[in-house]
């Protein structure tokens, strides 16, 4: 293995990369990384001086009363506040995990949508030891088993299609060491069995056999429009984020979601078709 050692030993961090990192160390980093905290500190410290007054005005402009917790939350690079809903991105248009169930005794067809969304979560604040993420009311997480820094994973108990994916661990809650940021899939899930959105249900009742039922289910046309409507009508997903600090105290903030219909051109959706398609956009804000 001596050749291995010699080769690896030739790898060095480029000096310009080290210099770039050190530049960050020596610049006024708090202003750059977490402006609202730095400004807040300055505003409290300078009560009388004109400079402090000027900084205090800036603090109001930056914070705008949107940060009542001691930590900030960003998801997919968008900061989530108590202000307006912000768009985090769109659900995977072809998203796996949707399905139908035919109850031959009741002649009821239920339809469910489980749509994946990659969530780049960051919870930042001074002195955070660990952060616990918990979802409820129509959502669950998909985690890569053994992700470093993750502990206390509470499994998602419902049987869904994604549960068959051995590369995904389904959970309703997990805790992350404060040193890590984790990027789980956030999966929204809604089911209805009233026939309101399931356009095939009348056909099902006409035929009413296992075989025809299976045929109708197979031919069901999945729709992002229906998915969006069902998510807004049947679920009220919430993401509770609890930061536990090194001094033992904890704070919880709740993120709520809504869904909107967006449009992408065909080639982004399906290379075979060059027409507009509906996508489901995910929006989020902090619960007040």
């Amino acid at each position, binding site marked *: 293995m001596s050749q291995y050692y010699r080769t690896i030993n030739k790898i060095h961090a480029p000096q310009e990369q080290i210099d770039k990192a*050190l530049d960050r160390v020596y610049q006024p980093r708090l202003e750059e990384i977490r402006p609202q905290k730095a400004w807040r500190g300055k505003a409290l410290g300078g009560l009388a001086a004109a400079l402090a007054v000027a900084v205090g005005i800036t603090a109001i402009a930056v914070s705008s009363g949107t940060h009542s917790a001691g930590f900030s939350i960003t998801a997919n690079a968008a900061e989530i506040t108590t202000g307006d809903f912000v768009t985090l991105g769109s659900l995977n248009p072809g998203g796996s995990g949707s399905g139908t169930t035919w109850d031959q005794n009741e002649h009821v067809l239920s339809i469910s949508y489980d749509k994946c969304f990659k969530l780049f979560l960051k919870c930042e604040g001074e002195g955070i030891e660990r952060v616990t993420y918990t979802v409820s009311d129509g959502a669950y997480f998909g985690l890569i088993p053994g992700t470093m820094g993750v502990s206390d994973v509470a499994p998602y108990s419902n049987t869904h299609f994604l549960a068959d994916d051995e590369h995904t661990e389904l959970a309703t809650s997990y805790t992350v060491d404060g040193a890590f940021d984790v990027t789980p899939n956030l999966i929204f899930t809604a089911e209805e069995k009233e026939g309101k959105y399931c356009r095939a249900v009348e056909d099902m009742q006409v035929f009413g056999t296992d075989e025809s039922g299976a045929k109708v289910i197979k031919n069901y046309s999945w729709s992002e429009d229906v998915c969006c409507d069902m998510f807004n009508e049947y679920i009220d997903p919430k993401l509770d984020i609890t930061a536990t600090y090194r001094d033992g105290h904890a704070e919880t903030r709740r993120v709520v979601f809504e869904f909107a219909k967006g449009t992408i051109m065909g080639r982004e959706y399906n290379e075979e078709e060059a027409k507009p398609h509906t996508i489901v956009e995910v929006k989020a804000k902090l619960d007040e």
Partner: protein
Amino acid sequence: MSQFSAEERLETVIRQHADMIYRIAYQNTQSQADADDIFQEVCLSLLTKNPPLDDEAHLKHWLIRVTLNKCKNLHLSAWRRHTEALSDNILYENEDVRLLDEIRRLPKNHRNAVYLHYFEGYSAAEIAQLLGTKPNTVLSWLARGRKKLKEYLSD
């Protein structure tokens, strides 16, 4: 009280561990540009996450875990999946480039176990703790990784 400022201590940590961070990043990504990005992200985490700087062993473990996690996140990103890596052979002689290609072809766990054992000098038990697995599993990774590299080197 320490005679050094927080900035000076951070500078010492970055200079001391820069090569280790970069070596892990370079082996676990497909290009120098990716390794550069990972290096900067790890250094930024060092600034924002405030790990304890006084415990050298703990800090080194933390840096290794953060670097590996950043590499994993890079592989997961949608952007990464749809891009082709640009080759860069500017750092090495041909012999080194070919060996590095072989190292990158190893399964991720084998590659990292081999590096941590043969370069950083960690025991199987320590690597198991770092990578969140059992020592016997690490021994298996080491044996397979070493065998594949030896096969390549003997060709």
